């Protein structure tokens, strides 16, 4: 089915308690903008019975209680909010995230670089020079999907997962970059590690980024990593933020 990316979205049911508002079928910043604008418009004045909003690459999942908010009313409300030019309720932020690409942290950097015909130093420099967009979270708490990976290092995912990596791993695979807060096996390449905690339930900001934020990586050496890691584990936020 084709879909007019700029036109009326599709309204899809995910059971009777979730409505998917789908703006397209591909990963694209303009589609993501529409998802995030609707997310912000609904969050700014949520109707009674709206439970939870989950923005993803190309759609917004709206969890709702159909006994408080019926589907037709919700669809009408979404269309009404879409008709008004979106104003985000939170200015997008530019984050600078420290990242150590050097051993022992960039475990798979050399392997990935070799597959791409680059040196590890070149691959790290390319990764660190780019400006990324936070598309969405998913998979596990704080697991952040980033768009904007340069073509030169846009590699497919592994055909078989590698053994579990450390927490706070910076990953590349499937044409994207990502940050994984938990240790787990992965089909992505581990190119570095950030000392920042992207999931910190003991901290007032349990999660730092909002979808739509921008992010760049700042290379640090292993000694700096160790120092910042200790501060982050003690509860400090070591990423830097500024208005985008």
């Amino acid at each position, binding site marked *: 089915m084709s879909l007019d990316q700029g036109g009326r979205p599709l309204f899809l049911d995910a059971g009777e308690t979730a409505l998917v508002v789908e703006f397209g079928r591909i990963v694209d910043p303009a589609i993501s903008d529409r998802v995030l604008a609707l997310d912000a418009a609904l969050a700014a004045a949520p109707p009674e019975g709206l439970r939870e909003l989950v923005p993803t690459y190309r759609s917004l999942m709206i969890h709702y209680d159909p006994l408080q908010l019926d589907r037709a009313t919700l669809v009408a409300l979404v269309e009404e909010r879409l008709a008004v030019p979106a104003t985000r309720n939170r200015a997008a932020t530019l984050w600078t995230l420290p990242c150590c690409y050097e051993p022992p942290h960039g475990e798979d950097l050399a392997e990935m670089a070799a597959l791409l015909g680059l040196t590890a130093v070149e691959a790290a420099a390319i990764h660190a020079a780019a400006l990324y967009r936070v598309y969405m979270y998913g998979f*596990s*708490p704080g697991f952040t*999907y980033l768009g904007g990976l340069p073509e030169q290092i846009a590699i497919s995912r592994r055909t078989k997962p590698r053994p579990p990596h450390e927490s706070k791993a910076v990953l590349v695979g499937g044409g994207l970059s990502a940050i994984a807060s938990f240790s787990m096996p992965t089909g992505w390449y581990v190119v570095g590690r950030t000392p920042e905690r992207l999931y910190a339930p003991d901290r007032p900001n349990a999660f730092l980024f909002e979808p739509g934020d921008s992010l760049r990586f700042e290379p640090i050496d292993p000694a700096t990593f160790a120092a910042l890691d200790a501060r982050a584990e003690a509860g400090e936020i070591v990423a830097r933020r500024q208005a985008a």
Partner: protein
Amino acid sequence: MSAVLRLLSAGPGITVQDRGRHGFLRYGVTGAGPMDPFAHALANRALGNPAEAAAIEISLGGLELTSEGAPVTIALAGGDFQVMLDGQALPPAVVARLEPGASLKVRAGLAGVWSYLAVAGGLDLPYVLGSRATHTRTGMGGLKGRMLQVGDILPVGMATSEIATGRIVAPLLERPAESIRVLLGPQDDYFAPDQIAAFLAGPWTIAARGDRMACFLEGPKLSHNLGFNIPSDGVAMGAIQVPGEGLPIVLMADRQSTGGYPKIATVIGADLGRLAQARPGTPIAFRAVSHAEAVLARAEEQSFLSGAIPIEPLVRSLFSPEFLLGLNLVDGWVDARAPA
């Protein structure tokens, strides 16, 4: 002294669950919560608790516990489990009072996979991101983010009123698994009409591999007409995703917040428990219903849960519990300590 529950034995897969962790799916946080939301809410409501209070989700592994410090009123609801209180058999859906030192044993019975043990006042454990629900894969919530084990001590919250004991009368708990209602979508258009027909025709069987994350199905392999890679999008509980190899997987309470396979249909809320309680090997069929029918089924459950839950006093019987257990009777089990 306030009351606690102490676990004297515990099989694998037993966790503390409240209604689930809401508001953080957008940050990748799984909702967790009960596999059978209706039974969980029923056990709580039978005690006068809020439906969302933290309770113990008992797996087929079963458990034995005792209360300490003060009497505790508990309720059980869910599958057809075997319940023994100080050697006396109780019905599987029941409200009972545990005196300090009492022995309560709950074991897998004739049918069902999960039983919920709620306590008057709820389990008083710390909130993590606004919820007491356990998610073991991320070590979040419940008791130290893990399954319960022998020796665990669970603090009980303050209960407010006198609570009637006896059998919980809830016809809605009778939920044979053979027909599971679904809403088609959100990606049913990734499947040709003959594949939708094959999905609805089945027959499907619950596979042996399955846990709080997903229920796996065996049956005809389904094919996609638009490929099986989609950009990851939100995943509701009950979403039926069809990966490349074609066998559907129903994503349950511990599912990941987002997923990247087309979802052919979603199990309606009122039938989540029906599916969760089906043991491996159970044949099931899916039946597509309208959104309105799904909402009606939900309204029926909510209406029942929001009223006073009928409790029927247990009566003394002339027969020994061993004799009655031998007959596999569902009703007529006794509480010898109840007044004649």
